[in-house]
C-alpha cells in the first residue's frame, strides 16, 4: 500500500486512496489545467498513523461518549478538540516521515506550502463538505508542514464535520482523510468561481480578494463580486464589497479586468464540463497565469442539508477581530444598557400601579425581555467563542496532555455570581455567630447588625435578590443557615498553577508576537467570565417581569380585577415569555420508559463529559423547576437540566453537579469550576434516570456518574 503519490501519478481509480479533492486536481492537471505541483499523502498513511499511535480506540471512546444525535454543538466542539489533541500529540512512523519530508523538501525547496484536506466523503455529488475540514496555506518549514498534516487529519472530526455527520446520519467514526501537499502559488488576486450561481441559479458567480484567498474562504475579507452570463461574451455585472462601495467603481473593478473575469468564467465552465456537474473552483492569478487550486461540486448552498440550529451553531465561530468588536459593544454599550433598564424597572413598583398601568407595564417588560433575549443569542452567545478560540490556539502551541487545561487559565474568580456569593457567605458567617439572629433576618427590617443590613441592601441594589417581601426574607434566612461559611474556593494552588500556564503559553510566541498572545488571553478571560455574567444581567430583567406578572396573578386570583383589565391581564399572563417564567423546563427529550409489569432497565452508571475535576459522593437533589433549588442541602449533588441564572446563588452549597446540557464552556460548567465543585455535563437522562435521594458518585475527571444505591 502506498503512502504518498505525486499528483501526476494519481489515476481515476485512486479516489478511495486519495480522496475527492486530490482525485479532482489530478484529473484537472491531466486534462491540461494549470495546477500547482504537489502530491497526496494517502488515506492509508492516515490509517497507519492512527494505528501506530493507538488512536483508533481512543477516538472511538471519544466519539462513543454519547450518540451523535444526542450531542449539542458545544459537545461536538469539545470532542473535536480532544481528538485534535490526540492527533497533534501523535508521532509519525519513521518510514512515513522520511517519505513525506523527502518529497516535501524536494517540492518546496524552502518555499511555502499549501496543505489541504481531501477526505473520502469530500466533494462527492451528495455532500461537498465545503469548509468543514481544515486547509493550511502559506506553511513554511518541515516542522510546520508536518504539524499542518496533523491538523488536516484531525479535522476529519472537526465540530463542523461531526455536525454534518449528525445531520446526514453518518457514523461519526466513518471516513478517511488524505492530505494534498502543494507548492504555494502566491497569486496577486485569488478567489472562488461558481459555474452556476448557488443561490439564484443561472449565471456564473466570481468572488475575488487581493492576495491569497485564505481571507475570503474563512470569511475575514468581503470579496469583490462579478456575475457573468453563461456562454461566450456574456454580460458582466460587478458588485464591490460594501466597505468600498462608495469608492470609485473604476478602481475596485480593476481588481480583475473584464478579460480576466471571462478567463475565470471559462475555467469554471471547463471544470463543469470535465466533472459533468456545476463546480465551485478556487483559483489564483500569478502574473498572467491562472492556477486552479481546487474544484468541487456545488451541492446547493454552503449550508445545504443543515438545520437552522446547526447553521446558527456554526455561525458562532468568530474571528479575533470580530470578537474584539463584540467585546467593545458588550462591555461598552450592552451591559450598561441592561443595568440601566433593570434599575429603571426596579424603581417602578408594580404593587402601586393601577390595573391598566400594570397591564401596560407587563407588556413593556415583556418586550424588553424579548429584546434582550435576542441580544443574548445574537451577541452574548457568539462572544462565548472567545474562550474556544483561545483554547484552540493554546492547544496548538502548548500541546498539553489535557485538552481542557486552558480553562484553568481563564478562571478569574471575579464573576458576578462569585461576588454575590461572597456577600451571601459573609452574611451567613454573621448569622452563624448569632449577629444578627436568624429570627431577626426572617422578620425583615433592620436587624441591629449594620454591616449585615448594608450587605442585604447591596444584594437588592446590585443583584435585585431581596425585595420588601417577607417571603424573600424567610428564604434568605433559610439559605444563610445552610450555606458554607466563607466563599468556596477553587482547587488549591489554582492561581499559582494558572500563572505557570500563562508563562508557558506566552513563551511559545516569538518575543515580538507576545503582545498578541496577551491580547488573546485577555479577550478569552472576558469571554469566559461573560458566560456567567450575562446570565446574571438577564436574570435581573426576568426577575422584574416576573415581579409584575406575580402581582397581576395575585390580583386575578384574589378577584381584585374586573372587566376589560381582567381580560387584558389574563391574555398577557398567557404569553409564552411570561408563562415561561413559571413553567418548569423540560426534563430532557429521552427518558426511561416505565413499562408496567415488564422488566425495567435502570441506569446504574451514566456517562457525560468531565466539566470540573474532582470526585464526590453524596445524595442526589433533582431540580426540575428552578424554584426547587431552595431545597438543595449542603453537600448534595445537584442534578438538573441546566443551571439557570436564577439557580446559581445556591450552587455553592452543592457537593457536585450533574447536568443534562453538555459542554466544557457552558454556564453550569463555568460556575462549577469557579467553585471547585466536581461536575459532569451532557448526561442525557440526568434529571429522569436519577431520583432525589439516590446515593451518587460524581467523577469529574472521567465524566461518569454512578448511582450507588437507590432509596427503597
Amino acid at each position, binding site marked *: 500500500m502506498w503512502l504518498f503519490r505525486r499528483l501526476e501519478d494519481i489515476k481515476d481509480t485512486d479516489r478511495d486512496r486519495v480522496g475527492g479533492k486530490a482525485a479532482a486536481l489530478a484529473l484537472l492537471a491531466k486534462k491540461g489545467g494549470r495546477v500547482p505541483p504537489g502530491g497526496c499523502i494517502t488515506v492509508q498513511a492516515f490509517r497507519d498513523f492512527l494505528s501506530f499511535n493507538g488512536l483508533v480506540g481512543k477516538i472511538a471512546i471519544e466519539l*462513543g461518549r454519547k450518540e451523535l444525535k444526542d450531542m449539542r454543538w458545544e459537545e461536538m466542539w469539545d470532542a473535536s478538540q480532544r481528538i485534535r489533541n490526540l492527533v497533534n500529540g501523535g508521532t509519525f512512523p519513521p518510514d512515513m516521515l522520511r517519505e513525506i519530508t523527502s518529497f516535501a523538501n524536494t517540492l518546496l525547496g524552502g518555499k511555502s506550502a499549501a496543505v489541504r484536506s481531501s477526505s473520502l466523503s469530500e466533494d462527492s455529488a451528495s455532500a461537498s463538505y465545503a469548509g468543514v475540514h481544515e486547509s493550511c496555506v502559506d506553511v513554511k518549514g518541515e516542522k510546520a508542514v508536518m504539524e499542518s498534516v496533523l491538523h488536516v487529519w484531525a479535522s476529519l472530526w472537526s465540530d463542523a464535520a461531526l455536525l454534518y455527520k449528525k445531520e446526514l446520519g453518518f457514523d461519526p467514526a466513518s471516513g478517511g482523510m488524505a492530505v494534498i501537499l502543494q507548492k504555494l502559488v502566491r497569486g496577486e488576486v485569488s478567489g472562488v468561481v461558481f459555474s452556476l450561481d448557488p443561490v439564484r441559479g443561472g449565471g456564473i458567480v466570481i468572488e475575488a480578494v487581493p492576495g491569497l484567498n485564505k481571507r475570503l474562504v474563512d470569511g475575514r475579507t468581503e470579496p469583490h463580486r462579478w456575475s457573468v452570463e453563461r456562454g461566450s461574451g456574456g454580460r458582466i455585472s460587478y458588485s464591490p464589497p460594501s466597505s468600498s462601495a462608495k469608492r470609485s467603481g473604476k478602481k475596485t473593478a480593476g481588481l480583475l479586468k473584464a478579460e480576466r473575469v471571462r478567463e475565470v468564467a471559462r475555467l469554471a465552465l471547463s471544470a463543469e464540463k470535465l466533472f459533468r456537474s456545476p463546480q465551485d473552483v478556487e483559483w489564483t492569478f500569478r502574473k498572467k497565469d491562472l492556477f486552479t487550486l481546487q474544484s468541487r461540486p456545488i451541492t446547493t448552498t454552503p449550508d445545504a442539508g443543515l438545520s437552522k440550529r446547526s447553521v446558527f451553531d456554526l455561525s458562532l465561530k468568530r474571528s479575533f477581530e470580530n470578537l474584539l468588536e463584540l467585546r467593545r459593544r458588550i462591555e461598552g454599550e450592552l451591559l450598561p444598557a441592561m443595568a440601566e433598564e433593570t434599575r429603571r424597572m426596579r424603581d417602578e413598583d408594580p404593587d402601586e400601579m393601577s390595573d391598566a398601568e400594570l397591564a401596560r407595564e407587563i407588556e413593556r417588560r415583556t418586550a424588553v425581555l424579548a429584546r434582550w433575549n435576542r441580544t443574548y443569542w445574537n451577541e452574548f452567545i457568539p462572544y462565548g467563542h472567545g474562550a474556544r478560540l483561545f483554547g484552540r490556539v493554546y492547544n496548538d502551541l502548548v500541546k498539553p496532555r489535557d485538552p481542557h487545561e486552558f480553562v484553568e487559565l481563564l478562571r478569574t474568580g471575579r464573576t458576578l455570581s462569585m461576588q454575590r456569593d461572597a456577600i451571601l457567605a459573609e452574611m451567613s458567617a454573621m448569622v452563624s455567630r448569632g449577629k444578627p439572629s436568624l429570627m431577626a433576618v426572617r422578620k425583615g427590617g433592620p436587624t441591629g447588625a449594620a454591616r449585615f443590613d448594608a450587605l442585604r441592601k447591596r444584594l437588592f441594589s446590585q443583584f435585585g435578590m431581596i425585595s420588601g417581601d417577607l417571603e424573600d426574607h424567610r428564604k434568605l434566612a433559610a439559605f444563610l443557615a445552610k450555606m458554607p461559611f466563607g466563599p468556596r474556593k477553587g482547587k488549591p494552588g489554582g492561581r499559582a498553577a494558572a500563572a505557570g500556564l500563562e508563562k508557558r503559553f506566552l513563551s511559545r510566541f516569538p518575543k515580538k508576537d507576545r503582545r498578541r498572545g496577551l491580547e488573546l488571553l485577555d479577550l478569552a478571560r472576558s469571554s469566559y467570565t461573560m458566560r456567567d455574567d450575562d446570565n446574571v444581567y438577564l436574570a435581573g430583567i426576568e426577575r422584574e417581569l416576573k415581579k409584575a406578572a406575580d402581582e397581576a396573578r395575585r390580583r386575578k386570583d384574589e378577584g381584585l380585577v374586573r372587566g376589560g383589565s381582567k381580560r387584558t391581564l389574563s391574555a398577557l399572563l398567557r404569553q409564552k415569555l411570561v408563562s415561561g417564567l413559571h413553567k418548569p423546563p423540560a426534563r430532557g427529550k*429521552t427518558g*426511561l420508559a416505565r413499562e408496567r409489569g415488564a*422488566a425495567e*432497565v435502570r441506569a*446504574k452508571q451514566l456517562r457525560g463529559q468531565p466539566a470540573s475535576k474532582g470526585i464526590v459522593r453524596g445524595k442526589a437533589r433533582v431540580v426540575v423547576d428552578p424554584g426547587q433549588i431552595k431545597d438543595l442541602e449542603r453537600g448534595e449533588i445537584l442534578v438538573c437540566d441546566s443551571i439557570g441564572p436564577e439557580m446559581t446563588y445556591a450552587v455553592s452549597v452543592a457537593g457536585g453537579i450533574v447536568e443534562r446540557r453538555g459542554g466544557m464552556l457552558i454556564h453550569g460548567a463555568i460556575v462549577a469550576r469557579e467553585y471547585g465543585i466536581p461536575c459532569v455535563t451532557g448526561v442525557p437522562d440526568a434529571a429522569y434516570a436519577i431520583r432525589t435521594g439516590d446515593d451518587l458518585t460524581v467523577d469529574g475527571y472521567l465524566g461518569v456518574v454512578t448511582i450507588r444505591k437507590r432509596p427503597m
Partner: protein
Amino acid sequence: MNSGASLSRIKTVLKGQGLGILATRGEVYPYQNIVSYSVSGDLKTMTFATSRASMKYANILRCPHVAIFVDNRKNTEQDLIDAVGITALGDAKELSGAEERRWKRTLTARHPYLEEFVSTPGVALFAVRVKVYYAVSRFQDVEELVMR
C-alpha cells in the same frame, strides 16, 4: 436511554451468544470457566451443565451465588464502543426430575453438540435464578435490570 431498547439489546446479546464465563466462589479466590448456556425467554433463568467432578461443581455446592458474563466483542478496537458486556448475578441450583428434563431440552436445543455430554450420569444440570443483570455498553454506560 430507552428501557425498551435496552431490554432488547440485553436479550439480543444473551440469545445471540452461546458461551459465557461462569464465576463461582472458591475457598479463597473466585474461579472462572467458559460454559455453554441457554437463557429462558423471560431472562429469569440461565442453564448450564458441568461434571460433578469439576471444581465449579464443588464451589457451587459450597456457595450457590454465581455470576455469568456474556459479551459480543469481536476483538477489535471498535469493541470499546460497539461491544456490550452483560453480567448476570444469581443463585445456581442443581436440577432433577421433570425440571431437569425440561431444561435439558432447552440447553441441547441451543447447543445440539452437548446432547451426549448432558446425558452422561456424571454431569449435573444447573439452573441459575437470575436476580439482576448489569449491562455495560459504550465503554462506561452501565444499566441494571432487576428481575422480579
